[in-house]
Structures are given as C-alpha cells and as structure tokens.
C-alpha cells in the first residue's frame, strides 16, 4: 500500500519529523480558504506515483484566488492514468539546499538500508545509476536501529561527496541528522514499511531540516496490522488505484494473482516460477502472452474455473494455455474439472492443456475426448497454442 503524500506527512509529524504547514483540499473552495490561512502556497496533486511535477500537478499560488484556480485545474487532471482525489496546499519553503534521505529494503543485505545523499530532489534511482558514489549507505542492526555514531558517519560519508557550499555548519548538521534518521527508521519499523523516503529533504536558509515530500510504502503482507491506515485511505483508495490496469484491479478484487501483459494468449499455471517459465515458452514459440495467472500450489477444479473466468475478461485473448504440475493431484480429476469449466463458461477459444500428475495419461485421453487439446510437454503445448492462435487470426 502506497500512502499519498499528505498521509505520509501525517505519519512523519506523528514521529516528530518536521513538515511544511499544510492543508488538504478536495474542492477549489477548500483550497482557497486553506490558502487564506497559509499565505503563498504550493498546490500539489495527491497521486500515488512520481512525475506529477512534470505532468503539471504541482503549481505555486501567490494568492487565495490563484490557489483556487490551481486546485480546480489539478483536481480535474488525470496523471498517468490516476485521478486526483485531493490537493495538498503547503507554505512555500525558503529552500537553501535539497538532500535525499530514505529507508528502504536492501535485498542483498537482507536489512533495511538508510540512504543519504546531497544530490536531493532528483530521482534516487538516477543518482544511483549515474553517480552511485554520491549516495552514502548504512545498514543498521534491525534490533537496535541506527546508532548516533553510525548516523554521524553516514552524514560525514555523504558530505565527502557533496559539492559546493554547505548551508549548515558541520556540527549543527550532525546534530540534526541523528534524531531525524532515527525517527524515519523508527517510522519504517512501526508502519512495517519497505520504503520511507524524504525527497527532497529541505535545508531552509534559516537552517531547519524539513520534509519537502514524503513517500511511504507499507508492506502488503503486513497490512493486517494497519487497518487504521487502510481505513484512512478510505475514499481515496479507489482514486489511488484508478490508474492501475483495470483487469488487475478486478483480479485483486477476486483474490487472484494476475498480471496483465497485453498479448493474446491467456496463461494459467500453478506456482509463480512455473507460470513465469510458461510465459517464456509462449514467447520462445513466437506468441505473445496476455497475462500471468498463478493459481498456487494445488490444482483444484474450482480455482481453475475462476482462473479461466478471469482470463476471459480480457477481450484480446484468442487462445488459452493451461500448464498444471499436478504432483499428487489426479490427472483424470483435473481433466474432468477443466471440461466442466469449459462447458459452463462456454469457451469456444482454442484451449491447450499440459498437465502432469498421477493418472495423467487417462487425464489426457479425457481431455482429447472432451475437445480440449492435451500436450505432453510444456514446450509442445506452447507451440500448439501459438500455432492455433496464429491460424485463427488468418
């Protein structure tokens, strides 16, 4: 779950991380009265993706009337497919310098890493690619969190690659960074987040550290501990997924592990690695997979049926490839389930099934009699479904 900026900042504040004064507005009228309170403001679209500035989703407003106009424009926008449910109005900061500070999962080290860079305001991925030496890193012990001396060293390491004049003298910077990094790390732990990012971390001309923007991603596996956040997202949740692929949104609603890929051969299989390999086989044979759909370790008839139903929602699908590793599942039962599902869903498209399991030969015979194309190997099945779909298109 990705928090919107204003939600991320509410979390920052609760942890003692300073943010600009701000108000959320859902209508131009609300924006106008917020600006009356705040003075000169920046009006920012609340969407769960980056690049909103380039898309025109961030505007400076000098007067309440300008704020109203900016909000009215931004609230009607669609940014990379996402509707804008609200804008955040914030006081303008007197920016002296922009840093990057983030806590994120480092898979290689199997820990959370703290990243600090004086190349702030840019996408950190770009900095990481072009000038990795400008990012200082720390991998705190997960039980103690980052210790003060570690944070001071992190800051010194980042300073070593910083260019130009520094606004803050070194001792003040070191003193400010210690509690800030500890709070951000603490927040990441408390929210079960895999990313807590402040970019830019603004140093104002008066020498304060303020979170200019905020990004928080809560681990999907831990959402059950954060019903409060899920509830808070509430009405914004629909807008927050409005730019997602609509077939994927529907699959999530049905509780299926589905990724839309845009081709014309529907793919169903059990096990993530197996399904990924099935997509690769289709591509090797010159076909184009429509989707990834993993029905999990087993091969229960009802789940296969639900999967077929999901794949058929995609109007581009011209043929279906089911790849089931049965293990101890009986092949004849899988076959009967498939035939029944095919009949109930009135599937007329080419349906190629490759399955293994006990009694798999009997299963294949049943499929063939039922008008479904059985295959012995996955490569052969991929070849057949690609041929049939190409043939039907002619």
């Amino acid at each position, binding site marked *: 779950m990705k928090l919107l900026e204003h939600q991320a900042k509410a979390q920052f504040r609760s942890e003692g991380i300073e943010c600009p004064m701000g108000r959320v507005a859902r209508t131009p009228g609300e924006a106008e009265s917020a600006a009356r309170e705040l003075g000169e403001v920046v009006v920012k679209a609340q969407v769960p993706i980056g690049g909103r500035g380039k898309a025109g989703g961030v505007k400076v407003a000098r007067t309440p009337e300008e704020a109203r106009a900016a909000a009215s424009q931004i609230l009607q926008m669609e940014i990379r497919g996402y509707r804008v449910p609200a804008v955040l109005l914030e006081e303008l900061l007197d920016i002296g310098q922009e840093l990057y500070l983030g806590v994120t999962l480092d898979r290689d080290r199997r820990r959370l890493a703290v990243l600090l860079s004086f190349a702030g305001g840019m996408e950190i991925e770009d900095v990481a690619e072009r000038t990795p030496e400008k990012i200082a890193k720390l991998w705190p012990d997960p039980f103690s969190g980052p210790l003060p001396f570690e944070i001071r060293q992190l800051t010194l390491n980042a300073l070593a690659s910083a260019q130009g004049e520094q606004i803050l003298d070194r001792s003040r910077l070191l003193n400010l960074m210690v509690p800030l990094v500890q709070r951000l790390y603490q927040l990441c732990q408390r929210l079960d987040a895999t990313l807590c990012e402040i970019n830019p971390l603004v140093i104002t001309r008066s020498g304060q550290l303020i979170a200019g923007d905020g990004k928080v991603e809560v681990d999907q596996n831990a959402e059950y501990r954060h019903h409060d956040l899920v509830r808070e997202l509430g009405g914004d949740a629909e807008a927050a997924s409005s730019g997602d692929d609509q077939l994927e949104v529907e699959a999530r609603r049905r509780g299926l592990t589905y990724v839309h890929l845009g081709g014309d051969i529907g793919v169903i299989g059990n*096990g993530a690695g197996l399904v990924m390999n099935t997509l690769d086989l289709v591509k090797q044979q010159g076909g184009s997979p429509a989707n990834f759909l993993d029905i999990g370790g087993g091969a229960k008839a009802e789940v296969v049926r639900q999967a077929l139903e999901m794949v058929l929602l995609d109007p581009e699908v011209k043929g279906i490839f089911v790849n089931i590793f049965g293990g101890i599942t009986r092949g004849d039962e899988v076959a009967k389930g498939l035939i029944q599902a095919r009949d109930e869903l009135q599937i007329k498209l080419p349906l190629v099934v490759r399955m293994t399991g006990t009694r798999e030969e009997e299963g294949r015979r049943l499929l063939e009699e039922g008008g479904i194309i059985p295959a012995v190997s*996955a490569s052969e099945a991929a070849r057949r479904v690609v041929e049939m779909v190409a043939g039907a298109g002619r």
Partner: protein
Amino acid sequence: MSILLNSESRVLVQGMTGSEGTFHTQQMIEFGTNVVAGVSPGKGGSQHLGRPVYDSVAEAVIATGATVSGVFVPPAFAADAIMEAAAAGLQLVVCITELIPVNDMVRARAYLSSRGARLVGPNCPGLMSPGERSKVGIIPNQNGRPGPVGVVSRSGTLTYEIMQSLGAAGYGQTTAVGIGGDPVLGLSFSDVLELFATDPETELVVMAGEIGGSDEERAAELIGRGYPKPVVGFISGRTAPPGKRMGHAGAIISGNTGSAASKVAALERARVEVADTIEQIVERVTARLR
C-alpha cells in the same frame, strides 16, 4: 551423501497440529524423515501422528534431541517461530510459510545469523535428500530419486518439474533445496552452491533462478572465481515486464536490478551453461554426466 539434511537429522515440526502441518508431516514421515516431535504452544503433552507434542521448541529439543525444525505456522507468528528454533539451538530451520511481513523476516534473519543457525526459506518448498530418505517441507515424495545432481531453486512447482524431468532421464538428486520466493531469504544461491561444492556425491548442480534481486548475480560471481563442479543454469521470467510482481513477493524487476537478461549474462560470463527450457536442462545434465 547430501547437504543440510541426512538420515541422522532429527526433525521437529512447528505448527504440526494445524491442517497444513498435519498433512505435510504425514508426507514427511511416509518419505522416511525422522520426525521426532511437534511443537504447538498450549498443546504440549498430547500426541499427534504418533509423535509427542511440546509447548515450546526448547522443551522439544531437551526431550528429543531434535536438530532441525520445519516451520508451518501462520505468517503472523512465523518469524517468532523461526527465532524460537534458533534460540533453542537448532542448526537448521526450514520455513515453508508464505506472506510473512518483510520487516519481521529482516529481524528473524539477523537473529539467526547471530546464533549461527541456518534458515531455508521462507515461502519455499523446503528441501529433500532422496538418498537419505529425508525431507523437510512440501516437495512431493514421488519426485525425489537418489542420484548425483544438486538442485537449488527459488520456485516450488518448477523445482518439482526439474526433479521429475531429471528423474525420468535417470538422474536423481543428492539434495534439492528450494530457497524461496521472498525478498528476504535465509540461505542464498551462493550459500547452497558452497555446500554442494564440498559434498563428495554431488557431481553437478542445477541452479534455477528467476527475476528479482541479485542473488543469481552474486552466485555467478562465486562460480566465476572458480567452482569445482559443473553448473547448469536456468532463469525464468525472461518476458516479465519491469515493476510487476510476478506471483512471488521477490519476483519483481525494480529499476535496473533483477532482470532475467542481467542474470543470464552474469551466469554466462561465469561460463555457466544457461538452459532455455526444462528439456534443455536435462539435455545439458545428460551431456555432462554421461
């Protein structure tokens, strides 16, 4: 011979009395695994599947001398179960559970490292040493066959497929290890490769990776520095688009890391033959071992 698990291994199962735990413990016993105890807090003193059940891992270890744990407890309690096993002195913990919060695993993983215990998983099928008649986890019994091939893979069903196809061609396994599909794992490809390197009966290793992270690249570096046995590689997810989670929590290309192309290239630089299909894995293994 085998790695990690052999006929001497005394296995306890955390969460044995649950439905998944019951089914798979039964399968493990049928395969020949020496299951000595179950642990279910609050059910200590009872018997399940003919094995004594204890309230804590520490009690089970004292009473039975268990050396290995299989973890089948629900995701909310799994990281704690892993740490409990390590604290009780077990050398190997195999966690099958999926959907464990990542930060829980970060803590559990650090806790284990500080105690010298090894973790396989989570979100994995476990491991099986067919010649030793021992398995911990959910790899189907009929897919195991004794032989000279070491198998290490991130996926479940794909591992079974590889084992079955190798078996049909006459090549069994010393040990097959499913290291898991999560972003934060216990043993890495490199860790398992190092174990296979010193196992006298493993003649060749099949390593099946997938998109996401850079464990495969790290393993390629290890092999490139000089690995004593032939390795046949395989990478699934070559057609996966960036930014999409392909089933496994860990199977995602983020930014510039985790693509199949990068993994295939790294392996080929280390002179690992990379197969495109499971049939090709079997062909390459046959060519090397014939």
